[in-house]
């Protein structure tokens, strides 16, 4: 019997991601293994934007190999668990007008691992490879 699909529809994961203030950013280390860091994020203009400290390990990873992912989740109760992971090739935002629009939405204050007042580099991921799940869609409950 095929497993039931508990994936969110596009409008559902867009709403879910739009509500997230931060994501877990995954990048690739020089040895090809994964690396993770918290990153401020915002969904707008058809892409997921995120920030990394300028010159950080994360940014060096992205510059060397832009393949990345951004993930977030919620767990109010077991059957309300939701999550989404966006995959793709990250692009640095170099357009000053776009950076000025996105920058204020990326709030890194209080995120573990972030230096206070440090310079922020803005990157984005497209929304064409998104994995999501919503446990509210599980029908076979116990």
């Amino acid at each position, binding site marked *: 019997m095929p497993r039931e699909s508990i994936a969110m529809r596009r409008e559902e994961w867009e709403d879910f991601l739009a509500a997230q203030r*931060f994501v877990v950013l*995954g990048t690739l280390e020089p040895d090809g*293994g994964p*690396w993770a860091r918290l990153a401020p994020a915002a969904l707008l203009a058809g892409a997921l934007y995120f920030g990394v400290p300028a010159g950080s390990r994360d940014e060096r990873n992205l510059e060397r190999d832009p393949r990345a*992912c951004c993930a977030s989740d919620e767990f109010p109760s077991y059957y309300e*668990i939701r999550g989404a992971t966006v*995959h793709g090739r990250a692009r640095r935002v170099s357009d000053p007008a776009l950076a000025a629009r996105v920058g204020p939405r990326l709030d890194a204050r*209080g995120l*573990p*691992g972030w230096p206070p007042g440090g310079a922020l580099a803005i990157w984005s991921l497209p929304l064409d490879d998104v994995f999501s799940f919503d446990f509210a869609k599980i029908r076979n409950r116990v």
Partner: protein
Amino acid sequence: MSDANEIPTEASALLAQSRRVFLLTLRPDGSPTAHPMTGNFARGRLAFSSYRKAAKTRNAVRDPRSCALALEGYAGAGARAVVTRGRLQLLEGEAAAELLGAGGAAARPGNPGVAKRASDRLAEGKRVVLAIEPAEVELLRSGEA
């Protein structure tokens, strides 16, 4: 960043307390993916229950290089987090159940029906345990790079 033999006490305590963990694995093309998981730290290893046929399990079998980011809870990002890197090991049967039990997973509050079904699936071999033996550990604090 510390190596596995010297996990800072604070990082170890946070790993033991944390349930909200993002497990990062590599997809077949080598790109990273992240799986929101319930983590269980016991005997120096960070363990996760997973279906044998799940993508994360298949990723781990194909390429065991992994990373995990553990947060303090689900109310925001919290003030601290722990990043670990290491190789994922697949455990089955008694070894798997023993590691999850050693972390006290069975005694934690939650959905008892879900916990029992996961335990049954582990006994049936449909579920397995993925465990990271940390090679690198870093404690992240709010306000610190």
